[in-house]
Each structure stands twice: as structure tokens, then as C-alpha cells.
């Protein structure tokens, strides 16, 4: 038990360290970036020197860098990310209102990535020939195409020309939301699905050539039992590892996709916030993205011994 707990504690500790380092870097970057937050606030309005000073005081802008950082971090550990400069609203509320759209979008894309990537990857590995060749060509193109290009191509074809899907907005109610999020999810998923497909294909070709798969054939298992019951179990291991990275990486790509499709998620929030130097928001969103990334890595690492019996603690009593 403790042989299991100790590495976990170590992982959680390093997670905290990564987040701390990230917060410092992001804070530093915002500090060094040109332009000041209050200049956004006063743009277009005539404000008194006192108002300006009040803003500077509220965000501790006259303090030295390190104490600004410490003050901010003190709030963050208590769940207080401060006030959005742009919206004059607590950052945590702002983010909470934006998370459902992004979560649904990323979840939708993740399902597409796994279902399409794994199914077509296995199919290509099993059938080879024409299916395989087509899958390779299509996935190569998909991997090389930036998501905003995919987004615009999808919009012009399926939204503008054919009118099957809406081009903008997140919709109301679950069904309508899914309908609205279909094109964005496809745009978000495409290159990752291609990567998962290729990894699945390579891994399954290897697995299908394994001696123990031959054993299953000699035992008279049906083709589908051989593929899904024997080869798949080992073939999927590298895909699971990759999927953790790829799916958490969607949070980065979603900034572009949400902006192109006019979705109110945390990705588009980040883009808006960066544009106006709304640094409490930028900080919070980036911290969340990094936290999700590191956490999903942790999950994948913990999953690995479950998926790979040979990797289970050697000598550890079970």
C-alpha cells in the first residue's frame, strides 16, 4: 500500500511545484509585457488622476514586482483570483460561467478523437491495403492543417454553403448545444484524431504480429476476438498515454476554435483577456490549463501500471 502511496504523494508534490513555477512565469510575463492594464480601462474615457490611482491601488500596481506576485498568489491559494479588469467581476465567477461551454466542446472533441482515431486506426491496421493507404493520406493532411484553417473550411462548407450547422454561438439546451458545437468540435478534434489514428495503427500492426496473437489464431478464435480480445489490449497502451496529452492539449487549441466560432468558453476568454491585458483573467485561465495538463499526465501515469501488468511494482507485496 505505501509502495503505492509514496509515488502518488511525490507526484502530487511535483504537481504543486509545476503550478507554482507556472504562476510565477505567467505573472512575470504579464508584468514585463508592454502596455499597462489601467490604460485599457481609461481608453476613450476621461478619468481623473484619483480614479486612475484607485485602480492602481486595487491591483497593487505600484508595489514592486515580487510583492505584487505574493499578494496575488495569497489570494489564489484561497480561491480568490481577483477582479477582472475588463468585466469588473470576480475572475472565479467569470470562469465558472465560461467552463461549461469549453468542457462540453473539449469532451465532444475527445469523444470524436478517441472513437474515430481508434476505430479507423484499428481498421487500417487490420485491413491494410486501400483502407490503410487512404487513412494514411487523410491523416497526414489532417495533422498538417492548422485548426483555424479547418474551422474556416468547415464553416464555409457546412454552415454557409450547405447550412447544416450553425456558424456561431453555443446554443441553448443540450441537444441544441451539441448541434452548435459539432463544427467547432470537429475543427478541434481533427489533427489530434489523425495523430491518435496513426499511433493506434502503428501500435496495432505491432500487436497483430505478436506471437501471442498467433496463439489466439491457432486456438481458433474468430477474427474479431483476435483483434479486439487479444491484440487490442496491448495495442491500446501507447494510445492511452498519448490520448492524455492530446486531450489536455485541446485546451490550448480551443482558444483559436472558440474565437473563430464565437463561443463563450474559457479559450475565447483567454484571448480577449490577453488583448486587453486583463491579467487576473489571463493568470487564472493559464493556471487552470496547466493544472488540467499536469493532472491528466498524473492520471495517465497512474493508469500505466493498470494497463501494463509487467510495469507493476516489482517486489511490492500485493
Amino acid at each position, binding site marked *: 500500500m505505501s509502495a503505492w502511496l509514496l509515488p502518488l504523494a511525490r507526484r502530487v508534490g511535483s504537481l504543486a511545484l509545476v503550478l507554482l513555477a507556472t504562476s510565477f512565469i505567467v505573472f512575470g510575463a504579464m508584468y514585463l509585457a508592454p502596455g499597462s492594464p489601467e490604460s485599457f480601462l481609461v481608453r476613450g474615457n476621461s478619468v481623473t488622476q484619483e480614479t486612475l490611482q484607485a485602480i492602481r491601488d486595487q491591483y497593487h500596481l505600484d508595489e514592486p514586482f515580487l510583492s505584487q506576485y505574493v499578494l496575488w498568489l495569497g489570494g489564489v491559494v484561497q480561491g480568490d483570483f481577483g477582479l477582472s479588469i475588463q468585466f469588473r467581476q470576480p475572475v472565479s465567477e467569470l470562469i465558472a460561467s465560461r467552463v461549461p461551454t469549453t468542457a462540453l466542446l473539449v469532451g465532444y472533441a475527445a469523444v470524436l478523437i478517441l472513437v474515430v482515431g481508434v476505430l479507423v486506426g484499428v481498421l487500417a491496421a487490420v485491413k491494410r491495403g486501400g483502407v490503410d493507404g487512404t487513412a494514411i493520406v487523410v491523416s497526414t493532411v489532417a495533422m498538417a492543417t492548422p485548426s483555424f484553417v479547418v474551422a474556416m473550411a468547415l464553416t464555409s462548407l457546412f454552415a454557409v454553403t450547405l447550412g447544416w450547422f450553425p456558424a456561431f454561438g453555443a446554443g441553448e439546451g443540450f441537444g441544441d448545444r451539441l448541434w452548435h458545437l459539432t463544427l467547432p468540435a470537429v475543427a478541434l478534434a481533427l489533427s489530434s484524431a489523425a495523430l491518435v489514428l496513426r499511433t493506434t495503427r502503428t501500435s496495432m500492426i505491432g500487436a497483430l504480429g505478436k506471437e*501471442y496473437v498467433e496463439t489466439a*489464431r491457432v*486456438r481458433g478464435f474468430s477474427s474479431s476476438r483476435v483483434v479486439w480480445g487479444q491484440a487490442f489490449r496491448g495495442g491500446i497502451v501507447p494510445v492511452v498515454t498519448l490520448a492524455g496529452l492530446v486531450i489536455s492539449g485541446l485546451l490550448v487549441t480551443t482558444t483559436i476554435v472558440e474565437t473563430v466560432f464565437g463561443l463563450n468558453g474559457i479559450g475565447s476568454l483567454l484571448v480577449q483577456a490577453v488583448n486587453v491585458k486583463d491579467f487576473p483573467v489571463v493568470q487564472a485561465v493559464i493556471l487552470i490549463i496547466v493544472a488540467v495538463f499536469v493532472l491528466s499526465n498524473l492520471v495517465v501515469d497512474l493508469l500505466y501500471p493498470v494497463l501494463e501488468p*509487467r510495469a507493476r511494482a516489482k517486489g511490492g507485496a500485493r
Partner: protein
Amino acid sequence: MSGSTQMVDGPVLAIEQLRLDVGTGETAVRILDGVGLSCAAGEIVGLVGESGSGKSMTLRTAVGLAPKGARLTGSVRVAGRELVGAGRREVLRVRREVAAMIFQDPRAHVNPYQRIGAFVADGLRRTRGWGRARAAQQVVSLLDEVGLPDPETLADRYPHELSGGMLQRVMIASALSTEPRLLLADEATTALDVTTQAEIMGLLRRLREERGLAIVFVTHDLDLAAASCDRIHVMQSGVVVEQGPALDVFERPEHPYTRKLLDAMPSRLDAEAPTPIGGAA
């Protein structure tokens, strides 16, 4: 020859005039050329010959495992079912009901992701439609039959926790699960140490006795073949050059290739005066 008048007429495995070609045109290669081999119930037939002589290929045709694009002529009958030119259904039936195969490297041939119990049970669950509990019970008695200690605990272990010899017994148990009549053993003892090799050989002989299995045993080791098999077939480049009762072949080889094989055996070299290095031709 089987002179028996039982329900099963003739040998369990009967290979006649088997020819196997791969490649086309310039690259065409004849891998087996007129191979004949038979094995009756309760008989152990040894198949010996140097590397690349076609032993594995011959064995694999008996479970429909010829390489892709191979052209077969002649006849391979397993319990009366013709496999040359047979469709997938017929091949599956033979694999499920009549023949089983074990290999040289059990560590590679046992699924590393399955617990031993699940691996052995799969034969019954996937080809007989047995339920989990019923199969698990049968697995325990199979593991016991092949001489593995503490079968209940063993069924919960993973392959990497077992030695090569134990894994070969697991392979044999899984092969036996569907009650085959023919067991094909492709160098099943080659990778094992001498003691384990003798134990596995003893197990195979016992199974032949108790279950009336027909066993075809491929090996490089003529000594082992002579000691354990009833009859021996000697192969050279895709042809069976000599066959007969094990001791006859071993003690009075007729074909020069068999003599050459025998002379190359370490045990024989030891027995005779050592040949000086670079000595006379």
C-alpha cells in the same frame, strides 16, 4: 500405419505429397516438396532436420497457418478434414476441435496482459461459449493436470511472474482445454534447461498415454527425438529424406544426411575422439 478398427479410421494427422511454394516468377521458392507424414492417436512422431528445412512450415499447414500467398498442393488431413484448399470455416473447426499447437518461446506465446487463468479459460469461453465460472473450474483441473502446483493461486498470476518451464506447462494446459486429438509441438523444449526439458517431455508422453493424443514433436535434438518419439521423420530442404521407428533411424541411419546430422550432435562428438581444429577433410 493404423490397423485399428475404431470409430476414427486412419491417423489423426495425414500429410501426403505436400508441396508449398511462396513468391512468384523469379522469386518463387519451393519450401516443401512432396512431404509425407502421419501421426496416429497415442503416437509421438518426431520431426527433425536442420534450421530452414521446413519443419515448422510442415507443422503449421496442419492448423492452416501457411504464410500469406503460399500455394499448397497435395493433402493435409486432420481427423479426416482436408485442409489444402479448405475455407476459413473448416480451418476454424480444425483449430477449435481437433488440433492444438505449442511453441518454442512460451513467454512470447502467452498473452502478457491476461492472468494465467483467463488465458487458459479463453479457449473454452471463446470457442465453446462456456461461462466464466464453469471455465475457471476447468482451468484449475487443467493446470493441475499439467503438473502446476497450487492452481487456484496460479490462475491469478500474470505470465511475467512465472518461469519459462511453468509457462510452457500453461501453454500445454491451454492447448488441452479444448480436448484436441492432435498436439503440434514446435521445438517446445528447445528454450528450456535440460531438467525442465525432460519434465516437459515426460508430461507430453504422459498426455499421449492418458489422453491418447497424437503428438508431432519438432526438434533439432536427435537424441531427444530418439529417446521420446515412436517414429522419426528427417527433413532436409523441404523433403522428408528418411523416416522410420525412432531407434532404427538413430542407430542405423540410411540416408547420408541423417548420418551427417547424427555426426554433428555434441553428444556424439564427445563420445568419439575429438577432431583437431583444421584437421583433415
